[in-house]
């Protein structure tokens, strides 16, 4: 019974959404609103599971001193700090107690999680750590209540305006993201150098098409001819093949969606 029920739900929701596509009526549109909002909300709960898995794996690496375990500390500090910034907003600018509170929170969380993981995960003196964690957490709440210069915000999004949250985003995430992406310029060059060899007919076609399109900026009379051929290559053979792949993918998706709804395809439910 436990295995069949989910597939019945898949069939139910799947057929509903297929039929809903053909029914423009108000109720069908409202139903689609419900379902799309549900998907968004479920996504959030799943994210909580993901964060727990990240914490669990990092702690496991630290406790068992697996290779590169020191860096898991850095990940956990980054994670907790960012979440802490996100939920607090600085009201009147005294940063001292703010950082003191953050340090206390980090240590107390560290001890609490160690305590919860317990002896199983190779944690020594789990009980004492757990209570120490509780004690520190009490101190943290005392600081949070006493110091009015910043405040916890679970109910409003002022946290997003916290200068530390914004600076962590713009000064750490943005440059890291942009530079990781920029590595592609190096990788595309080494890939071209290594792979674009006229080994056989197919590789030669790949090479010629790439060269024509890469040369589309060369100035001068030759450049004009090449840029015209490159536009032609992009608008004719490229369009034709793209369209064949798109039609193929379209039909492939419809077939797979149908297999899922009819319960022929069950791999995603864990049954191989």
């Amino acid at each position, binding site marked *: 019974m436990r295995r069949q029920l989910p597939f019945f739900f898949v069939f139910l929701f799947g057929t509903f959404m297929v039929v809903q596509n053909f029914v423009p009526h108000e109720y069908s549109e409202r139903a689609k609103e419900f379902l799309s909002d549900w998907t968004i909300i*479920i996504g959030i709960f799943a994210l909580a599971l993901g964060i727990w898995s990240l914490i669990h794996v990092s702690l496991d690496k630290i406790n068992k001193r697996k290779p590169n375990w020191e860096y898991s500390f850095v990940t956990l500090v980054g994670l907790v700090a960012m979440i802490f910034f*996100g939920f607090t907003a600085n009201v009147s600018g005294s940063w001292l107690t703010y950082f003191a509170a953050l340090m206390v929170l980090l240590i107390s969380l560290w001890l609490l999680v160690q305590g919860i993981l317990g002896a199983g995960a190779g944690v020594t003196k789990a009980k004492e750590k757990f209570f120490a964690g509780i004690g520190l957490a009490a101190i943290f709440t005392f600081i949070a209540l006493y110091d009015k210069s910043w405040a916890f915000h679970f109910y409003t999004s002022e946290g997003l305006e916290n200068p530390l949250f914004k600076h962590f985003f713009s000064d750490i995430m943005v440059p890291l993201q942009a530079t990781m992406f920029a590595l592609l310029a190096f990788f595309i060059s080494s890939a071209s150098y290594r792979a674009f060899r006229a080994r056989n007919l197919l590789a030669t076609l790949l090479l010629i098409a790439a060269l024509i399109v890469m040369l589309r900026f060369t100035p001068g009379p030759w450049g004009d001819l090449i840029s015209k051929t490159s536009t032609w290559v992009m608008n004719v053979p490229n369009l034709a093949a793209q369209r*064949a792949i798109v039609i193929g993918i379209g039909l492939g998706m419809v077939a797979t969606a149908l297999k899922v709804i009819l319960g022929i395809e069950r791999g995603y439910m864990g049954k191989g």
Partner: protein
Amino acid sequence: METVGIWCGAILTLAIFSFLYKDNPVYKACEAIFIGVSAGYYAIVYFFDSIYKKFWLGAVTADQPEEWLFGGAILGVLFLTRLFPKISWVARWPLAFIVGATAGLYMVNYFVTNAMNQVASTITDVIARGDAGDINWIQSFGTLVILVGVITGLMYFFFSKEHKGAFGGGAKVGIWFLMVTFGASFGYTVMSRMSLLIGRMDFLLGDWLGLIN
């Protein structure tokens, strides 16, 4: 505060570039910071966007609350049963909802946009006439090539038919078209990858070192 931000960005940029030489502790540290900070950032952004703005404001504290949002929250809580191995099979229900609902939506959507509309735009008049009725040869040749490309491309993707004889010939022409499109889009994207690197160099030379005005 501004210069601290730029220096921090520059150091991180150089640290990531060092990965090109070889894996080193500085890169490992940046990787770890990046994972932690980004996981925290998206947790907060998605929390405030979905739970707070849509669920808390939309359902719990709204004047005429949208009760059906609670359905999503219940399914979400069901999902959390993964944490307890004994009852973790319950988590299959919200998954069934997500996969089933989206499969149903995608099935018709992709049928219309990918299959029907693309086929419709393939069915065109091969002979393209200029406004004075004279045949525009280049355009007509182009449309003919597109038709041949689409048909042979589709032939390549047949699974249950042996690629032999005339059908095999068609499929071979199809893979030629595919290789041309892969080469062309690879060449086309060299430019966008370069512009990423240019963006970083502009940051290093301009904002950080101030060599570019």
